[in-house]
């Protein structure tokens, strides 16, 4: 968005700039004005020359950093503070005295500066890229980003390793399916905050049951009444399954097949839009009959409208998580580690899960949930059993060339 604005405004000034040069009449003031223009040109040239020293005229270095070098002294002991960036609506109401966050502050004496300023992984990346690429602080101690973005940042060396001794709860209590992720096998850099499943949601009052992703893409009665998610990995994982490939490991050719299939579906007019969280409003309002959806959203929709159903499609479910990571130059890493360890206590995790309704990544939270809200204990979308988890898949990590290429293909089909 910011990039776009930047491209509109210069065009207006461009128009003005050219007129200035062309439109000077020769008349009486001609000489002095011409001199002025020359001087202006001179200043502009000087400005450009200075800029050339700072700005990337001849090339830009890679953004990679070494987290062991790009770090700062930890002030946690003196400054009992912690700055957190998270997605909106992703924590129980914080102001309440009994909320997980209030209890954390009371117990540790750390005052938490909490921001819900992560709306989109790519957007957040664009926001912090320039600072982290040149080893400058982003004034945050902890942030929650989705698997692939966390993986990319870890790969770029922008994330600090965590002290395993200080986050022992994570190593003890993390549920099995979320261990051994390809991009950080031994939990050196990350701890999942919440997990979720991507599947299909539909409005049972208005359409018949949908069992597979294939149906979603082809059934004529759904034409123009279906949305898919604009997160590339969510949707393409299913497309890869539809063409018979494995999202955990696929080839260039298989990717090509999957993206071509998606293009056909888009051209046929089956897909109304590619959306972020806003599909929930369209589904509730009846503009769409079915969609690709995130499990937690659907549980929350069901409170208002029991006709909304979540389906595990025949192709399987995509399992993902949003992960807590500590950026380079964070000043309160030890405080951040206290936070992480705290949220991996089963009791705290259950309290959080009872409110956000996503998959709880903490072993033992299910037993604690009995005390908080027994109706949620058997909810497969919060505490999925092993059978369900067996059908889940992950999206293979992409290298930087693949990222540019695949995201480019994706943008071409979906309209960005």
């Amino acid at each position, binding site marked *: 968005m910011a*990039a776009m604005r930047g491209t509109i405004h210069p065009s207006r000034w461009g128009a003005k700039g050219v007129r200035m040069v062309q439109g000077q009449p020769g008349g009486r003031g001609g000489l002095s004005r011409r001199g002025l223009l020359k001087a202006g040109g001179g200043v*502009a040239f000087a400005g450009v020359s200075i800029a050339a020293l700072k700005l990337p005229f001849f090339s830009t270095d890679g953004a990679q950093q070494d987290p062991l070098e790009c770090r700062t002294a930890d002030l946690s002991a003196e400054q009992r503070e912690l700055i957190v960036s998270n997605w909106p609506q992703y924590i129980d109401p914080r102001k309440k005295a009994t909320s997980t966050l209030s209890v954390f502050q009371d117990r540790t004496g750390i005052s938490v500066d909490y921001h819900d300023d992560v709306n989109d992984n790519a957007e957040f990346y664009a926001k912090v890229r320039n600072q982290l690429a040149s080893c400058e602080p982003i004034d945050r101690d902890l942030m929650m980003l989705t698997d692939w973005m966390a993986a990319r940042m870890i790969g770029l060396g922008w994330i600090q390793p965590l002290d395993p001794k200080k986050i022992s709860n994570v190593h003890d209590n993390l549920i099995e399916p979320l261990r051994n992720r390809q991009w950080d096998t031994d939990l050196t850099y990350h701890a999942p905050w919440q997990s979720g499943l991507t599947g299909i949601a539909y409005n049972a009052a208005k359409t018949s049951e949908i069992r597979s992703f294939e149906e979603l893409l082809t059934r004529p009665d759904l034409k123009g009444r279906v949305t898919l998610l604009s997160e590339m990995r969510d949707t393409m994982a299913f497309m890869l399954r539809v063409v018979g490939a494995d999202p955990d490991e696929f080839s260039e050719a298989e990717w090509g097949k999957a993206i071509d299939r998606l293009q056909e579906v888009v051209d046929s007019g089956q897909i109304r839009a590619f959306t972020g969280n806003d599909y929930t409003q369209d589904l509730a309002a009846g503009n769409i009959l079915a969609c690709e959806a995130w499990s937690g959203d659907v549980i929350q929709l069901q409170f208002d409208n029991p006709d909304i159903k979540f389906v595990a499609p025949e192709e399987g479910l995509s399992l993902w998580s949003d992960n807590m990571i500590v950026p380079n130059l964070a000043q309160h890493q030890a405080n951040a580690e206290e936070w992480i360890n705290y949220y991996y206590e089963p009791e705290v995790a259950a309290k959080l899960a009872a409110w956000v309704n996503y998959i709880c990544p903490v072993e033992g939270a299910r037993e604690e949930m009995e005390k908080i809200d027994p109706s949620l204990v058997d909810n497969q979308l919060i505490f999925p059993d092993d059978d369900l988890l067996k059908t889940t898949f992950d999206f293979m990590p992409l290298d930087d060339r693949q990222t540019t290429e695949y995201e*480019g293909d994706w943008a071409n089909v979906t309209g960005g």
Partner: protein
Amino acid sequence: MASTAGTAPVAVDAKPDTGRRRGRTGYLLILPGLAWLVLFFVIPFYSLIATSLYDPNGSDFRGYDMTYHIQNYWTAIQEYWSPLLRSLAYGAIATLLCLVLGYVLAYAIAFKAGRWKNLMLVLVIAPFFTSFLVRTLSWKLILADDGFVVDLLQTVHLLGEDGRLLATPVAVVAGLTYNFLPFMVLPLFASVDKIDPRLIEASHDLYASSFVGFWKVTWPLSLPGVVSGTLLTFIPAVGDYINAQLLGSPNQRMIGSVIQSQFTDANNYPIAAALSMILMVLILVMVLVYVRRAGTEELL
């Protein structure tokens, strides 16, 4: 003492000494503006050009080499000519609709509103008090498949049984028209309001019909407003992508969302920068041609 820029050349002839000093004052006066331009236009613009010439194989991991890869422009045009043309077409249609609606409105406010004039002007600006996004999102509610607009159009058979407005070009163009209408009305009003009504009366005295009177008197006198209004509408409308994203489907995407997704999602900075440059140059050329033909250069 009364040294104005206009008298400068005379002073040069009389006394070169004072002339130089006056000249210097002029330079000094222009410095703040120049500094502003350099800081907020020249440098970003320059950075954009540089980015558009980077090696397309670069990435955040490897960095970007300056290879003066002018082919980026060709690649960008080849891949994205259709959203580019679509943006120009949607922008042009929306501008035309704005002109028709806006002219009627501006004319009514200027000549017929009487004591309601100020109130009506405030009402034109009032939508700006809420956010652009909120206004566009509320159109989603109005045009919803189960909404009353679609129902009404279906009852009068303008829309088929499972017809819809959302996710069609109609919704996108309507959104653009709605959002940019005030940019058209205000300049139009400013120039229509200045027209001396006696000139129109005079045309009637000379046996001109209402239409001929309008065509020969009002319209030519309001041309400056028409030109600036169409420019203020067309330029941002072509670059807009919020309307296409919220009210359209993937088949209505505009060049703005392509640039945005190339920048933020694909991290393909060279192509995104090249596309921005192409869009900028296209609009610049079109505006210059338009202004030349309309004969209102002094507006720019």
